[in-house]
């Protein structure tokens, strides 16, 4: 039962990653691309959790934590750059 759900989950999350990539490449404005990158980190965490269930390894949470923190900080830095033209004043 979990294996079948994992298959569907992998398919859905990989499709979501491709859709984010489309928005990053195509995005008409810079905030669109920043939003696409933010969503990409969330989907990377989702994919890591699915891999953690698939390989039965319980140590993937560290990578997910690092990706979450880096995603948040990079989104804040990009937003501040778009807002003010510089990140650190």
């Amino acid at each position, binding site marked *: 039962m979990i294996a079948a759900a994992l298959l569907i*989950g992998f398919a859905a999350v990989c499709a979501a990653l491709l859709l984010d990539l489309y928005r990053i490449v195509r995005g008409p404005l810079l905030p669109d691309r920043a*939003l696409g990158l933010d969503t990409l980190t969330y989907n990377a965490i989702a994919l890591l959790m699915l891999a953690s*269930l698939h390989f039965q390894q319980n140590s993937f949470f560290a990578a997910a934590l690092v990706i979450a923190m880096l995603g948040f900080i990079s989104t804040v830095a990009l*937003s501040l750059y778009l807002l003010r033209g510089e990140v650190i004043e």
Partner: protein
Amino acid sequence: MMALVIEALIALLILTGAFFTLAGSTALVRFPDFFLRLHGPTKATTLGAGALLLAVALYFSWHDGQLRVQEVLIMLFLFMTAPVSAHLLAKAALHLGTRGQVELPRKRAGAAGWHGVPSGRSRSSRRDAASTSAMKKT
């Protein structure tokens, strides 16, 4: 019996997470405006990632026989930081003035209008057309 119930719960959480992750990214691609696009990732994708993290925490808690809180901590971190980053992105987009640069989707003949209202048929069609053209102009 207990194992079956927990397996069904984990499979349901995985399916929920997969559905909401895909829904958030579909919203990111399909919505016509940046401020509409902001809705999908900040709500649906956060819920999807949270459901998957909860599924992993539940699975390893049951598998190893001891409580596991690392994934729940990541989930709390995501739930706290997602509104902050969305707020900053919205502020950046407002600062750049993206309202005027958004192009409306092409309207097909006879299809539902931009707001889901069939164009040219309902009583408020003139007002809808006026607001749409005003939006196109600004």
